[in-house]
């Protein structure tokens, strides 16, 4: 095995040198493989690295095969791949390469992609409470017009209110051209009572965070002019007393979506997958009553019961396969790294986080969630499933590069590539490609892990 590999490498090196006519004699083909979750990012970084003569001093050719985390782990352990990619650790008891090093490389949102024809309004983005996600993927919700889904997709209407009075304080709002004008008046009694308090006005576009737009010492008469913004609710306070909320016209939060009576097709991975592992881990940790089994790379193993054989559950290979299936089939829903949905124009649902807010998967909202994660001494990241930042997207994964501490020309090349990936490539390209670059403690730990590669 070893000998054959060396021979193959030598042949690859010779052919490269002879074809390219350049490059040092030690140039090698570094073939890695594993998780499809990070394959899009790998493709970008490997291509850039292969061209980059400054970082890639050995003129290596790095390639990556998107075969799934399980195949990546097995393949790396058996020596089929010179480095691996996976979002899940080796299962306890399975054969592990000697001196294994997990290097966190990149984060990403596991987006809930769906295709649903015939909803009104047609381009609406579906909102799914995370519990509904858990039930859909467990086969407990099987129709798109299920009441639980419909309930989460009703617009909240705040009625028009131009004037409010409390405790002798009257606040009113008037819309004038492209501005709104506020007027706050106080009775003499109120003026006395709130003498040392501040009158504040904050504005909140529905569904968003309130922003303070006015703060002043209380007086018998106060006024403020502000640029008009649609769907905005203004909150007036005097000290800690809530005077009331004002809106210039009926404000609407979200859209009411009418769902067709379409059967849900859950699309899951046919191959062993770190994406699956992270997704089921989220479901198991967040809703242990529904997802009763510990997570697994294999969907059917982590699935709480037996997968139904009536076609309501569909399997496909790789993040690519999942996203393509959803693109092609009405009623389908899946879990896949954001970039795969974006590539294919598949819509992602907004999912509720522990803070109760619906958040779309984006590199930013994913980064907020991963900020709360912890990284262990061995480089493995543990997510905080109760993190309650309001703008965090709750379903995410971190991809690890797999290498070993043993010293070899190959590992030197892998180390160089991983450093380039973390230091140069990810920060520049990840967000644009739909990935979440690592920052802070995780990045620091990741760099420390890279240092262990090829270090003996």
């Amino acid at each position, binding site marked *: 095995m070893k000998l054959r590999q060396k021979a193959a490498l030598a042949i690859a090196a010779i052919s490269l040198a002879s074809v390219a006519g350049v490059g040092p004699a030690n140039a090698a083909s570094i073939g890695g493989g594993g998780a499809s979750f990070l394959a899009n990012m790998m493709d970008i970084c490997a291509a850039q690295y292969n061209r980059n003569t400054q970082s890639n001093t050995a003129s290596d050719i790095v390639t990556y095969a998107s*075969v*799934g985390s*399980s*195949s990546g*782990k*097995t*393949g790396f352990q058996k020596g089929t791949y010179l480095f691996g990619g996976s979002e899940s650790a080796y*299962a*306890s*008891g*399975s*054969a592990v390469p000697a001196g294994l090093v997990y290097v966190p490389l990149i984060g990403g949102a596991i987006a809930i992609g769906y295709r649903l024809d015939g909803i009104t309004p047609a381009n609406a983005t579906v909102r799914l409470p995370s519990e509904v996600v858990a039930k859909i993927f467990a086969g407990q919700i*099987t129709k798109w017009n299920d009441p639980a889904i419909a309930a989460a997709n009703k617009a909240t209407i705040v009625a028009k209110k131009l004037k409010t009075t409390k405790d002798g304080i009257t606040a009113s709002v008037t819309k004038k051209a492209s501005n709104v004008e506020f007027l706050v008046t106080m009775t003499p009694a109120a003026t006395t009572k709130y003498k040392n308090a501040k009158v504040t006005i904050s504005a909140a576009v529905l569904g968003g965070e309130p922003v303070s737009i006015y703060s002043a010492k209380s007086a018998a008469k106060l006024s403020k002019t502000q640029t008009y913004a649609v769907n905005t609710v203004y909150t007036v306070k005097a000290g800690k007393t809530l005077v009331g909320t004002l809106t210039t016209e009926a404000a609407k939060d979200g859209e009411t979506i009418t769902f067709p009576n379409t*059967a849900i*097709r859950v699309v899951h991975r*046919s*191959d*062993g997958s770190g994406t699956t592992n992270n997704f089921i881990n989220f479901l198991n940790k967040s809703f242990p009553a529904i997802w009763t089994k510990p997570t697994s*790379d*294999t969907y*059917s*193993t982590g699935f709480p019961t*037996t*997968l*139904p*054989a*009536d*076609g*309501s*559950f*569909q*399997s496909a*290979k790789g993040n690519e396969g999942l996203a393509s299936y959803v693109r092609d*089939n009405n009623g389908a829903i899946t879990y896949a790294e954001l970039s795969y949905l974006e590539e294919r124009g598949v819509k992602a649902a907004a999912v509720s986080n522990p803070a109760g807010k619906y958040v779309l998967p984006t590199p930013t909202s994913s980064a907020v969630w991963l900020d709360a994660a912890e990284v262990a001494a061995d480089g493995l990241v543990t997510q905080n499933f109760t993190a309650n930042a309001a703008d965090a997207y709750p379903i995410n994964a971190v991809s690890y590069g797999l290498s070993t501490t043993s010293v070899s020309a190959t590992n030197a090349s892998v180390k160089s590539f991983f450093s380039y990936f973390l230091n140069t490539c990810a920060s520049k390209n990840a967000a644009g490609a739909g990935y979440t670059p690592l920052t802070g403690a995780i990045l620091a730990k990741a760099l420390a892990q890279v240092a262990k590669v090829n270090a003996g």
Partner: protein
Amino acid sequence: MVVLAAIGGFLLYRGFEIFKDFGFSFITGSKWDIGNAEDTSTAILGIGAMLFGSVITAIIAVVISVPFAVATALLIEFYVPKWFKTILISVLDLVAALPSVVFGIWGYAVLLPLVENWSKTIEHYLGWIPIFNVPSGIFGRSPFLAGLLLGLMIVPIITSVAREVYSQAPRDLIDAASALGGTRWGALRAVVLPFGRSGLVGGTMLGLGRALGETVAVYLTLNLVFQVNFKILASAGGNVASLIATKFGEATEYELKALMAAGLVLFLVTLLVNFGATIIVNKSRKIV
């Protein structure tokens, strides 16, 4: 024969532990769960559903392809002019030489939407028959689609065998039949079809063997689910060969042994089919 024995021996050697651990339930069980990697006794491995899937898709394939192949063979041998015959034969050879992955992709991209619509129609009119009933309303990647695709794949094999035996049908008897008032078709039915029956059975068995072992085309057009699904229009199924292809890359040591065992079962079934074919062919030869 030596090669055959060597393959069988290798598979038996690698898969023996699995047969020892699971016995007959490896063939009848339909759960595939490697359990805890540390402790192989937690694994539950059974290829029942996949074996069933292999058989049902192969049967569908044969049911669809035999009439097709017979019609094509008769057409080529007895109806079309010579220049067209040459074209038809080379087209068939071309189809036979197509890699199955091309078939699979074509099946996924072109046949799938068509079959989905046909399935809906069939379910609408024949849904009261249990095997055509699809309560979930999800058709798509069904055993019917995979079987249909396999059927198209094995048409050339069966056709070429049928053509060969039909071409050897005695012209004298065909003449005799028409001299007695039999039409062209009547003469073919009275003479050629019975004469070629044994050869056709042989060709069909050959096709069946290929359909049983086909991997890529089934992998691309069937939704892999580890449960026995006899509702052929519903989108769930699998076969042994595609199971092996799916799991091979990521398999643990123990799972690998199970895949070898599954390979052995497939090997034996295929062998049995060929053996059966020989017996049937010999038997039907005696009748004629």
